[in-house]
């Protein structure tokens, strides 16, 4: 007696459909699971056995063999319970009126037969849709997550005994894209993220705010250097408030990642907030990039579509910082383990902050710095040249004197800044319509020359700057890129000398951070 049900497993952010074949034959009762099951899957035997017994079914006294196909992929996680249990029940004929083909079953069983929520439902539902399955059966708590995907029926199950009754809660999933207008409006309202913080909270620091605006508009990486207590962290925290809203694909990509790590807020549906990740400086290599025997996404991937903020960047382990170089370029990270290779997206803006020296007051007007030259040198060497090179915008955040603190001019609010950023975004989108990138920061080589033509006067300006400041060839490209973004913010077709001059001063720490 053979029955086949379907379940999914994860390979990175991709879901894969797994055929769960249950065979019952005569012989001494044994219960075997084959097909590269991991510990949690192997333990599923005990849960399934107890759950079947305690749900009013009879557990067959037969030789039970479960095969998880394709057998070459390692199966992880407790979500196979439901598929295994229903496979066995179908093989014994207990749930004859419940056809298993065309259904994806996901769920963890408890010993009393209840179906519990699991991680990673979203990627598996996407895989089910791509495989052309009709419906997915998910635990009640994963309902919202599953319903994010259109054109597939979502059925929830709370107890194993419901299979027999087949009086399940059946509902067509709601369609995110097309629906009547009133719904759409309300949904949109619910999808606008609320931030309790705003750039208007920050006193003065107009230059820093301007630089941040440019960084966000062109997806440039940014480093802020300044003494303690000037508001570097405060500035960074407000960056998500000026980033444009996520589009559907970005939301889906972000939700996928969060679904895998189980961080998803199930009631809210697709994640609409851009992530702002602030890993502590004691972070290890594996948790930064992602890893493990079965790779899980790290901080760089959790920051996908958002901001990775490294506060006090010089305090991080040097080897951890060096690892960032590749993901910053590639916008995705490949984690290779002996058994498998996995890709995670990691398209983020790197925002770093640092003090100018170990004591923090080098170059400050208010206090004397008491670090030795050696100390300062060592501190600054923590950030390697190649990494610094990838940070397009380098700014100083100075301390404010008493006058500035009391009589500060109110700056722009996040709302106004966001408007300018969106305008610049749209300009870039139009310009790079035919390209496979979206932002100025991704301009390279020929493309850079093509999209950022300079007139002779500007070329001379840049030439002088390079000579006087001792800039590298790579810095030259970076300046042009940033200048391009500035001109986008200023709504200008061409790069003018003003834009270029502003861009040049964002390479302030090229040789002397």
């Amino acid at each position, binding site marked *: 007696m053979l029955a086949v049900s379907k379940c999914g497993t994860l390979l990175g952010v991709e879901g894969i459909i797994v055929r769960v074949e249950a065979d019952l034959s005569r012989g*001494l009762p044994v219960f075997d699971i084959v097909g590269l099951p991991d510990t949690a899957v192997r333990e599923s035997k005990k849960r399934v056995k107890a759950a079947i017994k305690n749900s009013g079914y009879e557990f067959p*006294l037969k030789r039970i063999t479960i095969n998880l196909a394709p057998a070459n992929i390692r199966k992880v996680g407790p979500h196979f319970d439901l598929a295994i249990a229903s496979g066995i029940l179908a093989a014994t004929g207990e749930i004859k009126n419940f056809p298993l083909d065309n259904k994806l079953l996901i769920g963890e069983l408890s010993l009393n037969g209840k179906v519990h929520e699991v991680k990673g439902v979203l990627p598996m539902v996407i895989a089910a849709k791509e495989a052309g399955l009709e419906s997915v059966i998910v635990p009640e708590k994963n309902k919202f997550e599953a319903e994010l995907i259109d054109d597939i029926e979502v059925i929830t199950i709370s107890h194993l005994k419901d299979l027999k009754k087949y009086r399940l809660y059946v509902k067509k999933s709601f369609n995110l894209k097309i629906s009547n207008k009133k719904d759409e409006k309300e949904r949109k309202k619910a999808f606008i993220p609320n931030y309790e913080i705003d750039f208007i909270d920050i006193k003065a620091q107009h230059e820093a705010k301007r630089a941040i605006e440019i960084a966000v508009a062109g997806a440039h990486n940014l480093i802020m250097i300044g003494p303690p207590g000037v508001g570097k962290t405060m500035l960074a925290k407000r960056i998500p408030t000026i980033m444009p809203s996520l589009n559907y694909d970005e939301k889906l990509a972000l939700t996928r990642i969060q679904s895998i790590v189980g961080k998803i807020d199930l009631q809210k549906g697709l994640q609409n907030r851009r992530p702002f990740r602030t890993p502590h400086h004691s972070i290890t290599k594996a948790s930064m990039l992602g890893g493990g025997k079965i790779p899980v996404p790290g901080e760089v991937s959790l920051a996908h579509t958002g901001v990775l903020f490294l506060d006090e960047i010089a305090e991080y382990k040097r080897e951890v910082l060096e690892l960032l170089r590749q993901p910053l370029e590639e916008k995705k990270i490949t984690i290779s383990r002996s058994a498998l290779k996995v890709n995670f997206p990691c398209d983020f803006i790197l925002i770093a902050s640092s003090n100018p020296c170990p004591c923090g007051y080098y170059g400050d007007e208010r206090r004397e710095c008491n670090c030795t030259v050696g100390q300062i040198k060592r501190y600054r060497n923590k950030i390697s040249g190649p990494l610094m090179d990838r940070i397009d915008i380098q700014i100083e955040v100075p301390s404010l004197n008493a006058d500035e603190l009391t009589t500060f001019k109110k700056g722009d609010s996040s709302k106004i800044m966001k408007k300018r950023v969106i305008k610049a975004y749209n300009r870039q989108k139009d310009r790079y319509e035919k390209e496979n990138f979206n932002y100025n920061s991704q301009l390279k080589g020929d493309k850079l020359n093509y999209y950022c033509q300079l007139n002779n006067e500007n070329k001379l300006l840049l030439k002088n700057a390079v000579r006087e400041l001792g800039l590298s060839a790579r810095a030259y490209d970076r300046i042009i890129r940033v200048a391009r973004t500035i001109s986008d913010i200023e709504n200008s077709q061409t790069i003018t000398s003003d834009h270029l001059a502003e861009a040049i001063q964002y390479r302030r720490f090229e040789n002397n951070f």
Partner: protein
Amino acid sequence: MKFKNKKEFGSWGEKKAVEYLLEREYKILFKNYRNKLGEIDIIASKDRFLLFIEVKSRKNNSFGPPQTAVNYKKQMKIKKVAKYFIMENNYKNYQFRFDVIFILYSQFNDLVNIRHLKNSF
């Protein structure tokens, strides 16, 4: 039928199993074969098959179904004894099979139910 003790019931069950096998033209080679590694209830043969048979007798299911009583440990033990037996007696041109016979005896209506699981481990 009344039994004095468990042992008597057990050997009665084994007797029933032997009767059952003889009816089906099995040749009984040993009953309660013993060596230093343990015991096998019945060793029989039929059509170039050498059978090692474990007999389980039960009066009720209060200790669970008899199928679950022949667990992995017991199976391994029987296999070890069987290997020793094969070596000792030089049975080369045989195929080997491990069977389990369940004897279910109902005291209410004096009925005996025999189930023979062939090639069970």
